[in-house]
């Protein structure tokens, strides 16, 4: 169930223009049909999370096709034009380089890069954030990016916990307790739930959950007794926090907001408003103009 303010939302509250693809529809339906109550401050916030989750899966696909390699921290590598490779295997943004450009370069010149799976997940999250936030805002928020495992930028507000419900676009973790000590980088795999029964893991590609488990099982120590298993935890960025910086929200703020007698709001551009002004003034009780 989705609760917006104190009102239960239904599918009819979401115009088809707000749902851009089947993945977003799946996320929305998962939230709507859930026995768990998902609370949001506005419909825009729901749409933002839906689109952000879609952006996570799209970025995972993009990373896969970028040709970026899997490597442990000893063998990490990056494009020196954008990043400094630190002795501990971290990528530190070079001074003067806009973070948005540096993140895009990982996807553009993937073959120059190599990193392990937790770093891959943080890169996927940054790329998804870049799709959802205006580049100027992104550059301000993530001005001093350092990529190293889950030592993330605090402004992604990442949460690792056991959620009340799993939703496509979540990042999950398959633990490999009996990993071969010669390849500790396979001690577990962070995976993106692609929503179609497939998961993306950096270094493993797209597989079903049994496929991921099987791949990790083959990287166990000789004589291992325990199979890899999916942990209950899920990892998500702070959707609600990031929404305040969203492109779609900023665009919405440039529009004219219309409220009907049920206080349901919708928006349209200033040009459209000017064309239909007379008609609109009859139908809507409140009209708010954008701030100059």
């Amino acid at each position, binding site marked *: 169930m989705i609760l917006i303010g104190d009102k239960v939302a239904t599918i009819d509250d979401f115009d088809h223009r707000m749902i851009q693809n089947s993945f977003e529809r799946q996320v929305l339906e998962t939230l709507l049909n859930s026995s768990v109550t998902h609370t949001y401050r506005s419909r825009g916030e729901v749409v933002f999370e839906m689109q952000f989750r879609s952006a996570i899966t799209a970025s995972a696909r993009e990373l896969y096709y970028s040709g970026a390699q899997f490597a442990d921290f000893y063998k990490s590598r990056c494009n020196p034009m954008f990043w400094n490779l630190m002795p501990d295997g971290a990528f530190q943004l070079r001074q003067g380089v806009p973070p948005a450009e540096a993140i895009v370069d990982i996807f553009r010149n993937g073959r120059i890069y190599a990193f392990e799976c937790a770093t891959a997940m943080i890169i996927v999250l940054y790329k998804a954030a870049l799709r959802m936030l205006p580049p100027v805002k992104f550059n301000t928020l993530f001005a001093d990016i350092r990529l190293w495992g889950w030592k993330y930028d605090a402004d992604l507000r990442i949460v690792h916990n056991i959620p009340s419900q799993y939703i496509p676009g979540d990042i999950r973790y398959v*633990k490999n307790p009996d990993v071969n000590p010669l390849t500790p980088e396979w001690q577990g795999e*962070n995976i993106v739930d692609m929503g179609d029964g497939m998961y993306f893991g950096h270094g493993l590609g797209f597989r079903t959950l049994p496929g991921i488990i099987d791949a990790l099982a083959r990287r166990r120590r000789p004589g291992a007794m325990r199979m890899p298993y999916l942990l209950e935890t899920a990892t998500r960025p702070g959707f609600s926090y990031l929404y305040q910086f969203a492109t779609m929200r900023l665009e919405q703020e440039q529009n004219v907001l219309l409220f009907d007698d049920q206080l349901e709001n919708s928006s349209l551009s200033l040009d459209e408003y000017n064309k239909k002004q007379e008609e609109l003034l009859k139908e809507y009780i409140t009209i708010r103009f954008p701030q100059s």
Partner: protein
Amino acid sequence: MNSSLEMIRKVSGISALKSHFIDLIEQDKKLATSQVNSEEVSFPTLYVLSSSISSNRLTKYLSDRNKVALALRKDILAKERAPASPFPYSICETPQLIHSVLRWIVTTGANENLNSKYRFVLDRSAGLLTTIFHDPTDLPAISQLLFKRHQEGHPTHYLTWAYFSTQNVSSLLPVGERLASHDREEKHFAKELLHFIPGLNESENPYVHFRTWYEENLPYLVLNENSYELTAQLEPYCVDFMMKYKEQPGNSRLHDEEFRSLPAETQKRLSDFSYKLRKYSRSEWNEWLTRPLEAQVQSIEEVNHDTYRR
């Protein structure tokens, strides 16, 4: 007496050692191998000479220690590792030999920093030592290696994982000892590794705080499955609140289900209080334990905690 090869490496450097060894091979292969087989030779020296040894086909004349050490090195540096490929050396048949060689690699090699491949071999050897042999006497050497890596700004991620893979609570001790260090950075890293100890960061005397926490919680610490790759920081052990609360697993099953359903913070408060009351007066504790959980929680709020402080 120090081996001459050791002396040359330490005094004249790696290049001098390599050319001396090649000269030695040309003059007398037997002497060359006997020198490299010397008990006094350390792993860094063997590592530096490894390519000369293999190119001159001297491997078959090496001691068992050196043969195993070079086999380990080769396997660790293998570019492609087929999944589930067996170890190239028989750990099952000669476990003591492999253990002693790994220990030799780590103890004699920890203080050298030849290059990144060398560091990689050292770190992986430490991982093999801890994950296969689980011997607590290896821990001081590996903690030494861990702090050295941190001090020099090199990766500590897998080594930290390897260190705590010993699955032995005593692994906390060599790290805790560093809280008493005069080196600020070392102290800071120890705090980072022990981040899961409540109140450690805020404590004015972190070492004393650690010792007190360790002694109080040692019987109740359990392995935590939480993984390093899942979060930014590893939490290798956690306190079993139920065990700390009841002292013995079989002790009063009255509240088990109810206790587990409490929020973690309440479980912690109850277990801490139970522990302190038990230390203060066992008879009072026995009586307190028979009260309903709700009454126990209420009593914590009512009681002046100072009464039960040791």
